[in-house]
């Protein structure tokens, strides 16, 4: 199972500001191991989705060009305090994880 994620959602006016930190090595598959000289196999998050109260707000495709331990910030208009945000990801090896937060 993948490492835990961190997520925080706060209201700023009528917009919910969501910040997510995912733990992931994000290997591009192009980097060589310094010791063995072998290419490190690609291992990165390919899909990230977010929902607010079950309704999809974000559907992202990622590549290995995103930094290690990806950070993602996005804003959603409409939700209220107490609404639930769920962010989930899947990587190219079939691993997945999700985290949820209550908008505060």
């Amino acid at each position: 199972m993948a490492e835990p994620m961190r997520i925080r959602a706060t209201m700023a006016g009528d917009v919910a500001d969501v910040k997510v930190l995912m733990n992931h090595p994000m290997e591009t598959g192009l980097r060589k191991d310094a010791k063995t000289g072998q290419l490190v196999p690609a291992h990165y998050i390919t899909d990230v989705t977010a929902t607010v109260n079950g309704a999809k707000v974000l559907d992202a495709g990622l590549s290995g060009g995103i930094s290690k331990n990806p950070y993602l910030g996005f804003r959603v208009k409409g939700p209220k305090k107490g609404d639930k945000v769920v962010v989930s990801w899947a990587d190219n090896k079939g691993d997945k994880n999700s985290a949820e937060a209550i908008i505060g």
Partner: protein
Amino acid sequence: MNALRRNVLKGAAGAGTVAVAVAAGLLKPTQALADVPRSAFEAKNVGDALKGMGATAPADSKDITIKAPDIAENGAVVPVEVTSGIAGTSAIAILAEKNATPLVADFGLMGGAEGYISTRIKMGQTSLVRAVVTAGGKSYTAAKEVKVTIGGCGG
């Protein structure tokens, strides 16, 4: 995304690729027409990446703001913030033009999501960071140069 639909309609070859991807379980059927195809992420240059996204000739727009450092000392972590002031923004894609595979990420926005994305990307070398915004079936773009200094003293 309309642009993608156009792409799929282009020919049997394109449609076949999507069908294969769906069959292989790479794409969930519901995603197949809502997302940029994975092939766009493997494109080796900006032109092919844009073509893969179905955004061959995006129009320059002043309503897109890219916030990124002028000089990034560490190319492995370059904070990038894209804000689109274009009404009806439905997707924001980020490209680092000189990366081995320029398309870094594509964010589909819906259900009240604002035209704003903040993330951190990798850059192999100094190049333009390009944002491509899709709104109302049209593509808009803006770019900002980020200098990458690997090692050294931040000069």
